[in-house]
């Protein structure tokens, strides 16, 4: 019953369009009937054909054949409609943040700014004085930044960096599963709304990583409310799951007030490319 000849996806697409000579159609028909492993490839070819149609990569005669020979059953029309819907959603709501960030001019380095400053002040004494002032200023900023972590952030950093691999330990903690940038607006998607009466002392966030973020890397996560960073965690690991990777993060419920939140996730090595996740506390 098994045929050894492999059918390729391009031929299958032409078969589905009814665009092959009869002997080739018969050969594929016989393979379909006798070889159950052909199903996976046929399903693939069927979906690719629908995407080709939506991408407008079919030739005009193929479009006619598509409508006449392929789009003949309610099942296929329903599939096409669904693929079109999911594609629209994925493309229009996918995170544009990364692309926007990538197109921005990177800020000049401190060294470049200093060089520019010194070039305007050729006299060495003034330049040296300015260097001392700038150095003191930078040290003050660094000192304040290092000290800006709240007690809660420091307390949760330890567990968020190492202790979330066994989810069974957190089965009693309210968990919110999010993926990046898929909301059309912050009032949509009841599943991403947090109701204070549901929350216990802590909330577990599970953030699915898009493929562009998948890597052996550590991540920085910022919770932003009303354009203000309200909670930050650094050097978070990622966890593998059945379909990819995710970040897990435990947060004290007390850190969340009513309002719309953005979670910005960026690789420690590429902080300029962040992925955004949205949720609302009601």
């Amino acid at each position, binding site marked *: *019953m098994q045929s050894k000849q492999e059918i390729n996806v391009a031929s299958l697409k032409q078969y*589905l369009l009814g665009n092959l000579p009869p002997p080739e159609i018969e050969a594929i*028909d*016989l393979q*379909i*009937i*006798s070889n*159950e492993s052909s*199903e*996976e*490839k*046929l*399903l*693939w070819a069927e*979906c690719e054909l629908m995407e080709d*149609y939506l991408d*407008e*990569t079919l030739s005009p005669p193929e479009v006619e054949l598509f*409508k006449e*020979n392929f*789009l003949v*059953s*309610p099942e296929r*029309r*329903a599939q*096409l*409609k*669904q*693929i079109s*819907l*999911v*594609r*629209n*959603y*994925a*493309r*229009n*709501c*996918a995170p544009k943040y990364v692309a926007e960030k990538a197109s921005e001019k990177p800020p000049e380095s401190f060294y470049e700014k200093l060089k520019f400053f010194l070039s305007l002040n050729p006299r060495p004494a003034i330049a040296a004085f300015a260097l001392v002032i700038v150095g003191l200023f930078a040290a003050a900023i660094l000192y304040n930044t290092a000290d800006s972590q709240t007690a809660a952030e420091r307390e949760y950093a330890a567990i968020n960096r190492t202790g979330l691999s066994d989810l069974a330990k957190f089965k009693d903690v309210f968990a919110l*599963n*999010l*993926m990046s940038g*898929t*909301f*059309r607006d912050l009032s949509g*998607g*009841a*599943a*991403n709304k947090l109701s204070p009466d549901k929350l216990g002392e802590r909330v577990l966030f*599970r953030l*699915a*990583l*898009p*493929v562009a973020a*998948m890597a052996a890397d550590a991540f920085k996560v910022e919770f932003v409310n009303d354009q203000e960073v309200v909670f930050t965690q650094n050097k978070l690991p990622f966890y593998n799951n*059945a*379909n*990819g*990777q*995710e970040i897990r993060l435990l947060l004290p419920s007390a850190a969340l007030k009513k309002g719309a939140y953005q979670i910005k996730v960026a690789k420690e090595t590429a902080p300029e490319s962040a992925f955004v996740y949205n949720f609302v506390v009601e």
Partner: protein
Amino acid sequence: MKKDFTLTQEDFDALLGWLSANREEAGVLYEKIREGLIRFFRFRGCADPPTLADETINRVALKVDSFDSSKNVKTITYFYGFASNVFLEYSRTTKKREVSWDSEDFSPARKLQAADDSPDTECDCLEDCLMKLPPDESALVVEYYGKDKSEKFELRRKLADAMNLKMPALHTRVFRIRGVLRECVEKCLEKNSL
């Protein structure tokens, strides 16, 4: 399509006997052939593949006695011949009473409609259904369909590599998730229409 064939127990036994002298083996072959015929009608775009497969089997069973075994024709070829006729009859009858459908609904231009701006209930339902999926599954579907034309191949190859899958297996996984989504969206739309 004419459906005036009635299969008796004797006809069915004769069919099994023709498939194999061993009754158990004949049963297994029968199931494989039926599944194959369902696939055939399914990928020919027929609306009710199991019924058409059964119709084909019935016709073969009724003609088993007249097959010339000396010609050494493969079993599957007989079934294919009858299935082709059933398909032609099906095509003729369905084309005659073709339900009209609005081709604009499936126009590629429709894809330009921005989900962000649309108050479309379908989009609301899809969003809610995506949120009900495990995060890795919803992320996979959104990623998979995130790019079009040539960009999508590269993206999908990356996805497959990241998940240590071959492309057909990646597609099958997305297809399965899409099936769950579709069911959920349909239920949601039904609920909203009440």
